[in-house]
Structures are given as C-alpha cells and as structure tokens.
C-alpha cells in the first residue's frame, strides 16, 4: 500500500467484492416471492380452416383463428430485482393422436417502467395455430392461459402461470374461403 497504484488496486478490489455481496442481497430479498397475479381472458371470435401445412408431414392440417381480450394488472410483480417480463399466451388441448398439445399464440415483452396494466381488446394471434393433424375440428376443450417469464437483475428466471384461464370450443365445420 505504499504506492498510489497498490492503494487503488486494493480499493477497487474491495469495492467489487462489496458490490457482489450487495447483488446477492438483492437476490435474497426477492427469491421466495410469489409472482402470480389473476388474469382475465375473453374470446370473441373462433374460426377454423383446413389448409396445407408445408412444414408438417401430412397434406392438410387444421389452422385455428382466435381473437381474444386480455386484462391483467402486473404491477405487483415488479420489484427492484425485476428487469422485464416476457408474457405469452398458450393454448393447451388434447387430441386423438397426441395427449397434450401446447401452442403459443401471442407474446409480448414488458420492460420495467412500461405501463403495467394490460387491457387489450380484440387481439389477433401473432403466431399460427396449426395443429399436428386434424384434431382441432369439433374439439370441445381448448384452454387458453397467460404465463410469463420473469427476467431478474440477479438470480433465477422463473416461469409463472397467471391464475385464471379460458376454455373454448372449436366449431364443427371448416370455414370456406371467403371472397373479398
């Protein structure tokens, strides 16, 4: 510690160690928090088509179209250890060929500081709702749930499902091609 450089070295190393301990403290204060909030989902329009799916092995697959409303208040989740939330809407159902299918229809990133009250109406799905085969037609029970991935400043990234889901049924017949 006789020279300026060696004093600066020990000062900086000590500061970094203290900073690491503070980050661990930040993680510990929020590690065991429950990050689930109630979510309200409504479905306004449901339609189904049978189209060629070039990414799949068979000739024609079912393609579903769902228009929905989501409302949720995500403010309680944000604390000093949350950087952003990655929300995604999942449709879950079972068919004759597969016991469990899960398809992500829509997702969104909410950063810290953005508006945390979600009140979306008439949202169309972002991604195609293709089925692995023809299992969507006349399927009585398709469950829509909103989940999110919490991205922290320090610590693990939990996947949390919102409480509240919506079940819907697909119609019996396919929609014929409309003329515009």
């Amino acid at each position, binding site marked *: *510690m*006789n*020279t*300026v450089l060696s*004093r*600066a070295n*020990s*000062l900086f190393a*000590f*500061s970094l160690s*203290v*900073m690491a*301990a*503070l980050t661990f*403290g*930040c993680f510990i*204060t929020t590690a065991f928090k429950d990050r689930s909030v109630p979510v309200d989902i409504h479905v306004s329009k449901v339609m189904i088509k049978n189209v060629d799916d070039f990414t799949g092995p068979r000739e024609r697959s079912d393609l579903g179209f769902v228009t929905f409303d989501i409302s949720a208040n995500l403010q309680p989740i*944000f*604390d*000093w*250890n949350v950087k952003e939330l990655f929300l995604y809407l999942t449709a879950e159902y079972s068919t004759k060929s597969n016991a469990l299918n899960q398809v992500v229809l829509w997702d969104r990133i909410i950063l810290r500081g953005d508006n945390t009250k979600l009140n979306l109406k008439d949202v169309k799905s972002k991604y195609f709702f293709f089925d692995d085969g023809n299992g969507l037609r006349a399927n009585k029970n398709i469950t829509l749930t909103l989940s999110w991935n919490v991205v922290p*400043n320090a610590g693990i990234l939990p996947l949390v499902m919102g409480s509240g889901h919506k079940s819907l049924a697909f119609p019996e017949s396919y929609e014929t091609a409309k003329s515009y």
Partner: protein
Amino acid sequence: MFSAFKSIPTDMDYKGQKLAEQIFQGVILVSAVIGFIYGLFVQQFGWTVYIMLAGFTVSCFLTLPPWPMYRRNPLKWQPAVPEASGENRDKPQESQKKKKHK
C-alpha cells in the same frame, strides 16, 4: 515535465497505510449499507449502485493522495555510518537493508 510528477512523494508510512485501509474499508461499507437500505426502500437497484459509486469516489479522494495525516509516523532510520576503512563492506549491506524495508 514528468520529472515534476515524479518528484511528488506518494508514499505513506506503515501506520498511515493501516489508517488508509481502515478509512476506505469503513467508507465503502457504510455507503454499501446506506445504498442497500435506500434501494430496498425505493425498489430500484440502480440507486444502490449509484450510492456505492459515490462511496467509492469519496474513499478514492480520501485515501489515494498521500495526505499529511498518513505521514505522521515516519520510519526512524539509523544515522549514516561515518566514512572509515570498512566502508566498502558496509555499503552493499546497507543498500540490501534499504531494499528489504521498501
């Protein structure tokens, strides 16, 4: 121009070094505790980091330059040996001793 910088003494004595280490450790720990509590209160980790950086800057200012308070107990060197016939043997021993103390 650099000879002017080199002539500024930057060393401290041992008691001064111990005092400097205690000062910077104390300042940084205190600012860390204050920063942690304030960040927890406003729920923003950015404030914790800013307060820590402020504490780091204050302790840099307090301990990096060699203030006179760190030089109050200088080492007491032995008086120089007067010139005698045994001087040639004494000289390399003295210079070795000085290197160890540094």
